[in-house]
C-alpha cells in the first residue's frame, strides 16, 4: 500500500497543476507487481478546493491507467508523458474537505464511475466507503463478497439462489467489479477467487 500526500494548496485547479503534483510520485508506481495490484491512497488532507480538471489529471489519470492494466491492454508508444498507460494499482482517496468532496461527487456523477474513499487504514487493512452509487446488482454482489471473500462465481451461485441469475451472470458481475477496480482476483486451479480491495465497507449494502 502507498500513501501519496499532495502538497499544501488552497485551491488546486487545472490539469497542469495536477500533473505537477503527481509527477513526483510516479517513480514509486510500478507497472506490475507479481503480488498483484497495489493499493494507492491519494491524500487530500492539505488541499482545500479542487476543480474537475485537477481531479481528472490526478485520480482520473491513475484510474484510467489502472483500468488499462485490468483490461490487459499494452502500453502504447507516445511522446505524451501523460498518455494513460497500464499501471497495476488500485487508486483511492482520503481526507476530503467538504469542497473537495463536492467536486469529486460532481466528477463521478458525470463519469458514472465509483471511487473508493479510505476512511481508516493501516498497513494491512483499509476501511472504506464507495463514493457514487453502483448499479444495484453490483452493489449487492460487492456486499456478498464482503461477507464471503474470497469467493468464486460458483459459490455465489450456490449461496444466493434468490438472485435468480445463472453462472455466466455472476461471472459478468465479478468481471465488472474487477474492471471497476473494486475487487482483487486470484486464480487457484481453474477458478477465479475474488475479494474486495478493502477489508471493511463502512456503508453496508447487504447484511
Amino acid at each position: 500500500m502507498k500513501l501519496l500526500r499532495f502538497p499544501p494548496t488552497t485551491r488546486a485547479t487545472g490539469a497542469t497543476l495536477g500533473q505537477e503534483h503527481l509527477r513526483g510520485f510516479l517513480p514509486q508506481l510500478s507497472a506490475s507487481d507479481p503480488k498483484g495490484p497495489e493499493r494507492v491512497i491519494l491524500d487530500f488532507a492539505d488541499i482545500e478546493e479542487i476543480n474537475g480538471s485537477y481531479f481528472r489529471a490526478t485520480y482520473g489519470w491513475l484510474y484510467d491507467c489502472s483500468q488499462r492494466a485490468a483490461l490487459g491492454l499494452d502500453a502504447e508508444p507516445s511522446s505524451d508523458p501523460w498518455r494513460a498507460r497500464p499501471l497495476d494499482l488500485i487508486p483511492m482517496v482520503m481526507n476530503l474537505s467538504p469542497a473537495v468532496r463536492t467536486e469529486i461527487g460532481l466528477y463521478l456523477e458525470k463519469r458514472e464511475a465509483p471511487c473508493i474513499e479510505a476512511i481508516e487504514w493501516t498497513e494491512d487493512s483499509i476501511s472504506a466507503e464507495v463514493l457514487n452509487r453502483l448499479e444495484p446488482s453490483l452493489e449487492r454482489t460487492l456486499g456478498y463478497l464482503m461477507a464471503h471473500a474470497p469467493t468464486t462465481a460458483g459459490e455465489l451461485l450456490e449461496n444466493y439462489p434468490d438472485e435468480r441469475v445463472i453462472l455466466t451472470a455472476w461471472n459478468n458481475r465479478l468481471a465488472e467489479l474487477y474492471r471497476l477496480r473494486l475487487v482483487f482476483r486470484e486464480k487457484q486451479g481453474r477458478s477465479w477467487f475474488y475479494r474486495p480491495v478493502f477489508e471493511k465497507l463502512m456503508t453496508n449494502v447487504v447484511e
Partner: protein
Amino acid sequence: MILNSRAIDDIQKLFDSGKALPEVSFESLTLGGLLELTSSYAEWSRVGNTRAVEFWAAWARVFPCVNDAWKAMSNGHNSYEDPHLSIVPRFELRSIQGRDDLLKWTLFEERFQRALVSVGFDRETAYGFAGAFQEMADNVVQHSGYDSNGRVKGVAAYLVGPGMMSYAVADVGRGVLASLIENPNWRNLSTSSEALTEAVLNQASRRERIGDDAPCGFPRVLESLTNMRCQLRFRSGDGLLALDGRTWPLRPATKLVPERPGLQLSVFCNLHSDEEPALTEN
C-alpha cells in the same frame, strides 16, 4: 474603428486580396480583437507581410497593450507587475507559461474573480467564469504543443466593466485539429471547423479515456454561461465556431475564415446589453 475579432478577419481578407485598407481611427479594442491581432501578427511577421506588420505597429503605438500581448506570447514576458492584494485591476494580461508559473496563475485567476464581483456579478457566477477562464488557459499548456525551447506560446487576458466582462485566451501552437487527431477516436476529422465543434460541443480530447469522461475544459465554459447574455468565439486554423448566448439554448454557427495557427477564443457577457467590453486609448 472598433478592432474586434471580426474586424481582424475582414482586414486579413483585404491583405490577402491586395486591397487597400480603409482609413483607420483607433477608437477601441476588444479583448478578442487584441489577442487575434497578436496571433495574426505572429503569422504576418513569419511570412514577411509588411503591410500587415505596419498595421499591427500602428495599433501598438496607440494601445501599449498590443505590444505587451506580443511580448507575452512570443517570449513569456509579463509587462504588468502582480498588483498588491488590495488592488482589483479592471484589465490584466498575462503570458501562459508552462509549468513554472502556477502560483502566479492562481493569484491572477483570483483577481479576475474579485474584479467580476466588483462590477456586479454574483459570487457564484464570478467563480464559474474564473474557473472556466483558468481551464482555457490550462488547455494551452496541455494541448497546444511546445516550441523548440520547450515553451508554450500563449497569452490570456480579462477585462471587466459595469455589468460586463470579457476574457480571451490565444496561442499559436498546433491548433485543435492537429491536437485531436492524436486520438485514434478522432482520426476521421479533416477540417478545423469539425475539430472545433467536436472539442467545444462534444468533449473531444486528444487523450483517450476508457468509458465516459467527466466534462472539463470547454464544457466548463459553456456551463458557466448558462442563461447569461453572452457570446463566444473559438477560432483555429481556418475554422470559426461562434456561439450566440443571447437566447438559450446556445446557437452554434461555423464558418470558414482566413487560416491562422493555434487557437484563439474569446467570451464576453453583458448583463444589460449586447455591448462588448473594449479598451479605449485612455
